[in-house]
């Protein structure tokens, strides 16, 4: 039984309604923090500490790792969307003097299910030597019938992508997992979530809104490709890999190669973007390690841009049929959605829990299906499930508001129970100028402007299997260590703020050592959980190591250790700050070269909504509301997003500047998803025709609107820092907010992503408004 004490925490939205909550917390936990205004570093816009190495090109990304004797690997990939491998003869390739090892990844008779599926790997002296070796392989494929279009794949008689044995089982969106779903043709599912009686709710509704919404396949398009350098040695394996989860990859490597964890080290310094696609070791990673083991030399393997587009994961496309029933006052009587989504040869193409949890509705049902097609496997991407889900639900709610003659914000005030989002709607409406919003399509002239909004919903995820260490060295320097990785969020800077806050130092005084499994295990950087997971144990570790230093200082200052506080570079007596030691002088009193504390993540003080083996969901979800102002040129069909107001919450905000960056990034990925990006598969060849960055369009600087970011300080008294994530919520609301703004501009609803000029013109033509 853990010994506890009672503490009172500030609770509620700072500046709106701050109350308090009383918690029983372990005695080892530090006292509650006040709101950010009363803290020195927490919440401040501290510039990222690794900025200098990034702007000078010094940061070492995985693709920059060069080891002595390193070989270069490339993968042979299937050129066909579906084929049987007939022959793989590598004799000639292996005889080339520059070639060091060849590793088959498929054998004759195997069925290859998408263009780009790996067939063999080669390691050679240079990248061009490896490419030439691939060309020298004698390989024959027997073409088989294929299907790459989701609608065609659902039709009777479509070529079967999988058989019962090969079809991956599992779930449409992962939350909750639904094993044992039926398989019929290419369709796996439905996974059903149901409460109440949706049919009765629809039958009894005053108003029913129906619609079909489509979202496209969206690739992660990280600028740094997937990359690994594997260095297998007699005394252990070291892997440099562009990853969102060093500790997870270490575990995968240990399992895959039968190594003790203690002999596996995973390192990432610079990490050039992941967005969900770099969470695992992957087939390419295993291949590189196998090659390194075979030749006894380090092996480098990185995707080129084409490989990155076809075989590095993607956000599945969906079609969602939605029915929403309501009473005249807006009360929802039923919400029913049937969805089909495609993650290529795998599953995971659902619509998340957005519809299930956002609005109060007693009669609810989702029926989610995965559809197999002969295309590269999808994987989680920034707000998986909820991002396509929000596109449908938030437009349907707006359509319902119009049918009822209720302002969309007023309707949401009635059906959304979250007090946090209510405040976010109020702030956003004021900033965007909602009161000046006109009726849909009311503007005359060819360029029509409009305003729209949409909401966000994501879990407050926490990784519970997380640890970190804080050290004070005898020269007064301080280190914080964890295997947690910085994938671009700047978490290392947030860590320095936490340690600096506790030790009374400046963030730049703290040396952050992360991205290496030699340090205590950090969690994954996915699911918007990094800050929530690492900062509480870090604060506790810093508090404990400070107590060790306070013992030495107290002796010198004739005070009890618990009378010593750290402030502005000093250790001082709380009741008499004229009695003090400089931090450095106190450290010099240490009897050993360093003192150290290691701490791990405790459960949230108020408990969790759901507990999983190494992770959990906090009680309160993450919200966020976004407003968009658009201009639609009805002659060209071009939509321009002119302004976005993004109002978000993430528990206690840790760094205003980095949060703003995250929100801007989420909004821009959302704009790109809404207007530009689409994986295009050729139905006749089964190939991706825009597997590059010229024809696969990403948002650029000219597509960037003015983005105003507001972050609420929403305290909950849940952990030593009370901090949660923001990366995914910032992405979920953007596309539907734009779609609702487009409707307000032109009076025609666009139900398919991306909203390209041709779709705008076609929609206008259909309704005679062009």
């Amino acid at each position, binding site marked *: 039984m853990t010994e506890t004490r009672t503490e009172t925490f500030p609770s509620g939205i700072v500046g709106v309604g701050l109350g308090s909550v009383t918690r029983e917390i372990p005695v080892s936990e530090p006292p509650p923090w006040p709101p950010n205004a009363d803290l020195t570093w927490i919440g401040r816009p501290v*510039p990222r500490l690794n900025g200098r190495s990034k702007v000078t*090109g010094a940061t070492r990304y995985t693709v920059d790792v060069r080891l002595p004797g390193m070989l270069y690997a490339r993968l042979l990939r299937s050129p066909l969307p579906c084929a049987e491998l007939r022959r793989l003869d590598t004799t000639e390739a292996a005889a080339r003097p520059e070639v060091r090892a060849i590793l088959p990844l498929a054998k004759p008779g195997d069925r290859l299910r998408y263009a780009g599926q790996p067939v063999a790997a080669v390691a050679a002296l240079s990248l061009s030597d490896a490419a030439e070796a691939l060309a020298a392989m004698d390989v024959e494929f027997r073409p088989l019938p294929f299907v790459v279009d989701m609608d065609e794949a659902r039709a009777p008689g479509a070529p079967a992508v999988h058989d019962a044995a090969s079809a991956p089982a599992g779930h449409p969106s992962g939350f909750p997992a639904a094993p044992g779903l039926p398989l019929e043709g290419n369709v796996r599912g439905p996974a059903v979530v149901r409460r109440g009686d949706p049919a009765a709710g629809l039958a009894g509704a005053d108003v029913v809104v129906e619609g079909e919404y489509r979202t496209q396949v969206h690739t992660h398009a990280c600028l740094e490709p997937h990359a690994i350098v594997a260095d297998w040695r007699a005394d252990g394996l070291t892997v440099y890999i562009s990853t969102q989860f060093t500790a997870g990859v270490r575990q995968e490597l240990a399992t895959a190669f039968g190594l003790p964890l203690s002999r596996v080290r995973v390192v990432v310094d610079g990490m050039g973007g992941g967005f969900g696609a770099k969470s695992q070791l992957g087939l390419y990673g295993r291949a590189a390690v196998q090659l390194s083991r075979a030749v006894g030399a380090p092996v480098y393997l990185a995707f080129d841009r084409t490989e990155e587009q076809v075989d590095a994961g993607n956000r599945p496309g969906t079609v969602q049929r939605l029915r929403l029933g309501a009473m005249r006052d807006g009360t929802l009587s039923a919400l029913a959605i049937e969805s089909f989504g495609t993650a290529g040869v795998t599953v995971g193409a659902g619509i998340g829990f957005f519809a299930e949890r956002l609005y109060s509705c007693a009669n609810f049902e989702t029926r989610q299906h995965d559809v197999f097609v002969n295309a590269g496997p999808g994987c989680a991407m920034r707000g998986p499930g909820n991002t396509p889900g929000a596109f449908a639900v938030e437009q349907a709610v707006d359509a319902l508001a119009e049918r009822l003659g209720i302002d969309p914000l007023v309707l949401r005030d009635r059906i959304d129970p979250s007090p946090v989002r209510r405040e976010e709607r109020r702030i956003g409406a004021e900033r965007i100028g909602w009161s000046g919003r006109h009726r849909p399509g009311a503007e005359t002239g060819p360029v029509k402007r409009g305003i729209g909004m949409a909401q966000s919903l994501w879990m407050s995820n926490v990784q519970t299997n997380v640890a970190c260490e804080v050290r004070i060295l005898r020269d007064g320097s301080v280190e914080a260590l964890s295997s947690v990785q910085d994938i671009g969020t700047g978490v290392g800077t947030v860590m320095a703020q936490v340690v600096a806050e506790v030790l009374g130092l400046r963030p730049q005084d703290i040396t952050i050592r992360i991205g290496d499994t030699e340090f205590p295990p950090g969690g994954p950087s996915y699911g918007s959980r990094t800050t929530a997971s690492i900062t509480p144990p870090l604060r506790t570790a810093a508090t404990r190591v400070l107590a060790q230093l306070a013992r030495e200082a107290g002796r010198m200052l004739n005070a009890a250790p618990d009378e010593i506080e750290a402030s502005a570079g000093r250790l001082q007596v709380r009741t008499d700050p004229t009695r003090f030691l400089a931090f450095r002088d106190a450290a010099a009193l240490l009897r050993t070269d360093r003192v150290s504390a290691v701490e791990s993540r405790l459960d949230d003080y108020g408990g969790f909504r759901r507990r999983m083996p190494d992770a959990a969901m906090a009680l309160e979800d993450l919200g966020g509301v976004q407003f968009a102002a658009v201009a639609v040129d009805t002659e060209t069909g071009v939509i321009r997003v002119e302004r976005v107001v993004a109002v978000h919450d993430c528990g206690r905000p840790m760094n205003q500047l980095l949060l703003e960056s995250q929100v801007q990034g989420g909004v821009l990925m959302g704009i790109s998803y809404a207007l530009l990006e689409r994986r295009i598969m050729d139905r006749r060849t089964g190939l991706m025709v825009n597997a590059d960055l010229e024809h696969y369009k990403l948002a650029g600087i000219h597509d960037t609107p003015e983005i105003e970011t507001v972050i609420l300080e929403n305290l909950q008294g849940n952990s030593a820092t009370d901090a949660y994530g923001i990366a995914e919520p910032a992405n979920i609301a953007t596309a539907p907010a734009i779609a609702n703004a487009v409707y307000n501009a032109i009076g025609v609803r666009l139900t398919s992503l991306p909203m390209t000029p041709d779709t705008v013109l076609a929609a206008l033509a259909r309704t005679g408004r062009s």
Partner: protein
Amino acid sequence: MATPTKTAITVTVNGRPRHLELEARTTLAEVLRDGLGLTGTKIACDRGACAACTVWLNGRPVCSCMMLAIDADGQAVTTIEGLAQGEALHPVQEAFIEHDALQCGFCTPGMVMSSAALLERDPHPDAGAVRDALAGHYCRCGTYPHVVAAVLAAAERKS
């Protein structure tokens, strides 16, 4: 297969003449990264669509992945490693840090090189000129708003 013929060239890189022997097919980006170990120059698309590989050729920004190294023979190349004066960062670099105009940082060296080149030719750009100068650069993290703010701040500081 015969070993491809190598060509000798001399390129001034960050103020230092470098004598290189390379295959004619080698791009400038490849030789900077693998021949000279200047890995600050990034290759992301390898065909001029994203501008991550931007360096200066005689002071003008170019995509180093779109240029054969032999075409740089006798010319001056400046990479991200050569922009700071010793410990003193270029004003654009300082402003990128202060305004958090970077996230994962992979596109950042190219963004910084184009931004610094802009200030060389137009010391007082407005936001539109900054956007025009960076129109070819992709940033998947979405740093564009902070990049514009940083370049405008750098222009102010420089003058």
